[in-house]
């Protein structure tokens, strides 16, 4: 029997049992749809988060506590403000490219408005290094940092929350029991689905933050390279500068690309995990196909016997039933793919979580659904092919 004929016969049989075929297909359809949708969500999360890291500005180097081994727990920082200055002086081609920060959480209030803010203690070049701009007022100056002056720069949302409809410049806020004068407001960055809302920050001089949090350290140091080419020279300079005071395993200098690489890898694993979970429902759908094909074979025992008597080879019968199984799962694959893409669009439109349909999830979903048909169709199809024509013809 030709391939075309096998396909025609298989389709004929599926049409004869429309409802059953549709329900069987549904199992595979749901499986494929979940694979496509969950992978789309995983991929979307990945590009959103790596995008957020890229949003810190390109050509950024991060100086972090610890030896930077992936999997090591958070390390206690040994950096001091002096280290930031030492790095800044060591960088080739001028100063102003290194900044440090000390981050903590503190309740902030002004005129009865109050919320829990992320408080950033920063050195004077911080805003330039991490690529933020002042919308109104002014940035924190070197003398603010040097003297630990009690002044603050507010994120856009912080300003709105504390001083709704008013100009916050010159007004006073309280962090804990200490009062700070607002000197500037930052340009709005906008929301991202992940990570802290940077517009809800409160920025104060690092020396003031050290007093506030009872620390003498700096959490992280950032270095802005002048170009992608200069990034290695800057990294070497920063390493050398820190090595004067600290041990090799007390710090690491990593580039933005490296962080994106690590985070991207983690999120890729997350995506694969989601795909695998969705794959389980595809597997269940496959078992359903197998089950229905076995029913179909036993219902059509006489037909199989007749076809054999009329000249069908074992191979022809096996192929006929295998095609039926693959047609069921393939159809579920195509429709499930369409619905999955549609669902991803809906999610991307209405949820804060972005969703990106990737080519490999499409190939995977279609490939796996056809594969499921082959794997789960083989057993019933072989059983059909091996039926003894004499017994099959006498079957009631």
């Amino acid at each position, binding site marked *: *029997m*030709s391939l075309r004929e096998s396909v025609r016969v298989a389709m004929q049989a599926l049409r004869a049992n429309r409802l059953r075929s549709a329900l069987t297909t549904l199992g595979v359809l749901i499986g494929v749809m979940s694979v496509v949708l969950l992978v789309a969500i995983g991929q979307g999360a990945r590009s959103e988060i790596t995008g957020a890291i890229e949003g810190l500005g390109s050509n950024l180097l991060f100086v972090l506590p610890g030896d930077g081994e992936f999997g090591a727990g958070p390390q206690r920082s040994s950096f001091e403000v002096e280290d930031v200055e030492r790095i800044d002086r060591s960088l080739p081609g001028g100063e102003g490219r290194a900044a440090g920060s000390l981050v903590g959480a503190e309740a902030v209030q002004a005129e009865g408005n109050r919320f829990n803010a992320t408080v950033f203690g920063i050195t004077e070049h911080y805003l330039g290094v991490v690529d933020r701009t002042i919308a109104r007022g002014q940035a924190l100056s070197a003398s603010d940092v040097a003297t630990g002056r009690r002044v603050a720069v507010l994120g856009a949302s912080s300003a709105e929350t504390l001083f709704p409809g008013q100009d916050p410049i010159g007004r006073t806020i309280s962090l804990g029991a200490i009062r700070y004068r607002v000197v500037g407001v930052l340009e709005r960055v906008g929301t991202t689905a992940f990570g802290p809302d940077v517009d809800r920050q409160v920025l104060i001089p690092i020396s003031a933050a050290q007093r506030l949090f009872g620390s003498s350290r700096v959490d992280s140091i950032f270095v802005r390279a002048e170009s992608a080419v200069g990034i290695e020279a800057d990294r070497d300079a920063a390493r050398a500068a820190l090595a004067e005071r600290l041990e090799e395993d007390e710090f690491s200098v990593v580039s933005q690309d490296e962080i994106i690489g690590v985070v991207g890898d983690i999120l890729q694993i997350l995506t694969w995990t989601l795909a695998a979970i969705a794959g389980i429902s595809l597997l269940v759908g496959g078992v359903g196909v197998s089950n229905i094909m076995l029913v179909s074979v036993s219902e059509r025992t*006489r037909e199989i016997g007749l076809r054999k*008597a*009329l*000249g069908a*080879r*074992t191979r022809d019968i096996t192929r006929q039933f295998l095609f039926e199984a693959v047609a069921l799962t393939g159809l579920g694959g195509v429709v499930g793919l369409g619905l999955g893409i549609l669902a991803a669009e809906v999610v991307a439109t209405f949820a804060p979580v972005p969703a990106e349909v990737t080519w490999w999830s499409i190939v995977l979903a279609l490939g796996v659904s056809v594969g499921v048909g082959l794997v789960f169709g083989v057993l019933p199809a072989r059983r059909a092919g091996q039926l003894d024509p004499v017994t099959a013809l006498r079957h009631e």
Partner: protein
Amino acid sequence: MSEAGPTGATHGDAAAPLLTADRVTRVYTLGRDNEVHALRGVSFVVDRGEHAAIVGSSGSGKSTLLNLLGALDRPTSGHVRYDGRDVRDMDDTELAQLRNGSIGFVFQSFQLLPRLSAVDNVILPLVYRPGTPRERRDRALAALEQVGLADRVTHRPGELSGGQQQRVAIARALVTEPALLLADEPTGNLDTRTGEEIMALLEQLHRDRGTALVVITHEMEIAERAERRIELRDGLIVNQAAA
């Protein structure tokens, strides 16, 4: 009769008879110490273009013999040969080709596929051989015309009378132009008049086309119409008589 070697006789021998049963036995093992000897050594020959009847009561072994003659089953011992080729030596593909090319089955219960139209039922054996859908359809329509059903081609079996259904089955058997029509109680499910018509149709096709016709029946009246009767009782041939 030439004896086929173990590996020989892969090609049909034109000089050999169409069908030979040579000391054929068939034993069914139903359980431990429970063997049924359905055939105990049956030998006969069917020549090209011959009309033979195999007659016997139920339990005589005629159904078993039908399965063996139809190459649906293999004998426990002895040989069934088509054109000198032993069925025992054929693999799955060769058996399928033999059933498809040389044998046309007509069953007591018609064995039509209920979801297919008459013409699609007749096309069924043609899909297992090369050809275009167009050719197959033309041949099936011609076969239906020959059995007098030109005006019923799109009807499904459920929409046809018993006699008409058996005519569709006969069209399906002859559409491959087989050398042998093998009819198993072809009138068993039909009333006397319709049965008479069906027998007349089979005999007419046998005469017009020179197709050998082997009818398996328990009815003497049907058997007596054949040129030769092979009477079975308890798995043995008790009488081979020319009419």
